[in-house]
C-alpha cells in the first residue's frame, strides 16, 4: 500500500485548515489583550492582578538565580580589594583631604542657608523616607526596560515612587505587590521624566527609547545645553523630587541631545526606593476641584454697593456675613493676579506645601483673616517675588504673613493660606 492510499493522508487538509483557524483565534486573543493593556498609568489597579501574581512568583526565583552571580561578584571584589588596597588607600587619602575642605564649605553654606530660611520663612521639603532593595531580574529589550526589586507593598512602596542607585536616578515604580516591585527604567520606551540642565536651569523631558542613552526632548531656550552639562530632576509635575542626579548631556550620533545616565556607572544591584508621594496622591483631588457655589445675593434690595473701579476686594469691607459665606481659599477668591509667587510655580507643585501645612500645623493658622488682610499677605517680600530662583521655587512656600496691616476679623473657617490649585 502506497502512502497516498493511506486513509490517514486525508487528514492533512482539514488539519491545515484547523491550524489556520487556531492561528486566527490566537491572533484575535493577543490583539484583544494588547488593546486592553494599560501599563504606564499610575493607578494601582491598572497593573493588574495577573502581573502582580507573576511578579510575586518571579521575585524569589530571580533572587535565587541571581545569587551565584552576586557571590561571584563579591568574591572578585574581595580579591581586587586585597591586591589593590595600597593604591586605593593612597587615592582615598587624597580624596579625604579634598573632602575636608568641602566639608568646611558645606558647614558654612548649611549655616547660611538655615539663616536665610529663617529670615524668609521658607518651608523646605521634608526629608523623604527610603527603602533599600535588591534587583532580582532584569529585562533589557528595545521594547521594555524594567527590573524587579525585592521590596514591595509590605514596606510601604507605592506605584510612582522614584528609584535611585548610589550614583543617580534609575527609574520609578510602576507596579507593586507583596515582596516585589516593578521598576520602569529611564531607558524604557514608556518613560518620561522632567529634568533640568543644572548650568542653565533649562527644562527638558527625558524620553526613553530602549537604548542606553535616553533622549532629551522639548529643550527650551536659546542654547540651553552644552556637552557635559549635568542633568537633574526638575520636580515639575510632582512625580519625582527636585534635584536628583540623572546624568550628563551628550550629543548623539543622530544629532539629538541625549543623556549618559549616572546610574550606568556601576551595575544596578542595590537600589533605594524613595517613598516620595506625588502631589496628586497627597491632595484630596475631589475637594480641590470642587466648584464653589456662589453666595446668594438676597435680591436687588440687599445688593451691595459696587466697589470703586480698581478695587480687588470681592466683598464689602466689614461685611462679616458675606465674608463668611464666600469661601476664602477657593479659586473664586484667589490671590491677586499680580502676585509673582502665585504665577511662578506649577499649579500642582504650588499647592503641595500648602496642603501639607494644613495637616501639619493647622492649629497655628487658626487666626482667621479678612479678605482685606489677605491681600497684602499674599504678596511675597520684594526680594522673593522679583527673583524667584529655581531653588526657592522648588519649596513652593507660601509667603510670610506677618506684615498684615488690617485689623483681623474672626471667621468660622480659616482660609488655607496659599492653597490655590
Amino acid at each position, binding site marked *: 500500500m502506497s502512502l497516498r492510499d493511506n486513509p490517514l493522508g486525508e487528514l492533512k487538509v482539514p488539519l491545515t485548515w*484547523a*491550524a489556520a483557524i*487556531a492561528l486566527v483565534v490566537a491572533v484575535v486573543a493577543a490583539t*484583544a489583550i*494588547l488593546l486592553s493593556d494599560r501599563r504606564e498609568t499610575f493607578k494601582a489597579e491598572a497593573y493588574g492582578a495577573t502581573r502582580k501574581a*507573576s511578579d510575586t512568583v518571579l521575585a524569589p*526565583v530571580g533572587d535565587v538565580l541571581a545569587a551565584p552571580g552576586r557571590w561571584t561578584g563579591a568574591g572578585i571584589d574581595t580579591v581586587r580589594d586585597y591586591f589593590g588596597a595600597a593604591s586605593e588607600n593612597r587615592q582615598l587619602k587624597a580624596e579625604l583631604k579634598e573632602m575636608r575642605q568641602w566639608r568646611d564649605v558645606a558647614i558654612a553654606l548649611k549655616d547660611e542657608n538655615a539663616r536665610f530660611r529663617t529670615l524668609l520663612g521658607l518651608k523646605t521639603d521634608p526629608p523623604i523616607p527610603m527603602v533599600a532593595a535588591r534587583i532580582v531580574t532584569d529585562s*533589557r*529589550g*528595545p521594547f521594555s526596560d524594567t527590573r524587579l526589586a525585592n521590596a514591595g507593598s509590605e514596606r510601604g512602596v507605592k506605584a510612582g515612587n522614584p528609584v535611585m542607585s548610589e550614583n543617580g536616578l534609575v527609574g520609578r515604580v510602576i507596579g507593586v505587590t507583596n515582596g516585589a516591585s516593578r521598576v520602569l527604567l529611564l531607558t524604557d520606551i514608556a518613560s518620561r521624566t522632567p529634568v533640568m540642565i543644572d548650568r542653565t536651569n533649562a527644562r527638558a523631558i527625558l524620553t526613553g527609547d530602549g537604548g542606553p542613552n535616553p533622549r532629551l526632548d522639548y529643550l527650551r531656550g536659546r542654547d540651553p545645553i552644552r556637552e557635559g552639562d549635568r542633568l537633574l530632576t526638575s520636580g515639575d509635575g510632582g512625580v519625582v523630587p527636585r534635584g536628583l542626579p540623572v546624568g550628563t548631556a551628550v550629543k548623539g550620533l543622530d544629532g539629538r541631545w541625549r543623556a549618559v545616565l549616572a546610574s550606568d556607572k556601576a551595575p544596578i544591584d542595590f537600589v533605594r526606593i524613595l517613598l516620595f508621594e506625588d502631589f496628586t496622591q497627597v491632595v484630596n483631588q475631589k475637594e480641590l476641584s470642587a466648584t464653589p457655589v456662589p453666595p446668594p445675593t438676597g435680591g436687588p434690595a440687599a445688593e451691595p454697593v459696587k466697589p470703586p473701579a480698581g478695587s480687588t476686594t470681592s466683598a464689602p469691607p466689614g461685611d462679616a456675613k458675606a465674608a463668611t459665606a464666600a469661601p476664602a481659599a477657593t479659586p473664586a477668591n484667589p490671590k491677586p493676579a499680580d502676585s509673582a509667587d502665585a504665577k511662578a510655580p506649577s499649579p500642582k507643585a504650588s499647592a503641595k506645601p500648602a496642603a501639607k501645612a494644613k495637616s501639619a500645623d493647622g492649629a497655628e493658622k487658626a487666626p482667621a483673616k479678612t479678605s482685606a488682610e489677605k491681600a497684602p499677605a499674599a504678596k511675597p517680600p520684594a526680594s522673593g517675588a522679583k527673583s524667584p530662583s529655581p531653588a526657592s521655587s522648588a519649596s513652593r512656600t507660601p509667603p510670610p504673613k506677618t506684615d498684615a496691616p488690617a485689623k483681623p476679623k474672626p471667621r468660622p473657617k480659616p482660609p488655607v493660606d496659599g492653597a490655590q490649585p
Partner: protein
Amino acid sequence: MSGARPLEPWRWLGVPMLQVMAATILFGIPLRLFGLQLPEPIFPMALAFAWAVIRPSILAPFGVLLLGLFLDFFWSGPLGLWALCLLIAYGGALAGRSMMAGQNRAILWAWYAVTTATAMVAGYLFVMLDSRSTPGLIPMAWQFVATIILYPFAQRLIDLFEDADVRFR
C-alpha cells in the same frame, strides 16, 4: 505503519516551551561582566519558527500565544505585544512552509531571519503606536542579531520532529 504514530504534543510542544522559559529567566538575571550585560534574545522565536516548519497544528498557535504572554509578563512590556509578534512570525513561517520544504540549512536560516525581522518590525510599529515614541533602532538591531544566532536550536528541533509523523512530510 510505525511512521504514522501520532506525535505526542508534550514532546515537541511542552518540553521545548519549558526549556525556552527557563532560558529566558536565566538570561534575565542582573549579571554584568566587564561592564557588559547579558544579551537578551527572543528565545521563543526559535520555537515559533520550528513548530510551523515541523507541522501544522491546532495546539502550536496557543503555545506561541502562551510563550508571548510569558515574555510580556517577564519583561513587563505591553501585555499581548510579544504574543502578537510571535504569532505573526509563526503565521509567516506556516504560510511559507511549502516553499521551505526540502531547502538546505542556509536557506532556512535566511527564512528564520526574515520571519524574525517581520515580528520585530511589527513590534516596532505596535510599540510606536502604544507609547507614541519611536524605539531605538540600535537596541533593536542587537536583539535581532542575538535572536537569529539561535537558529541552530530551531534546526535541531526541526531535525528531531520533522519526520516524526509521515503525514506531514
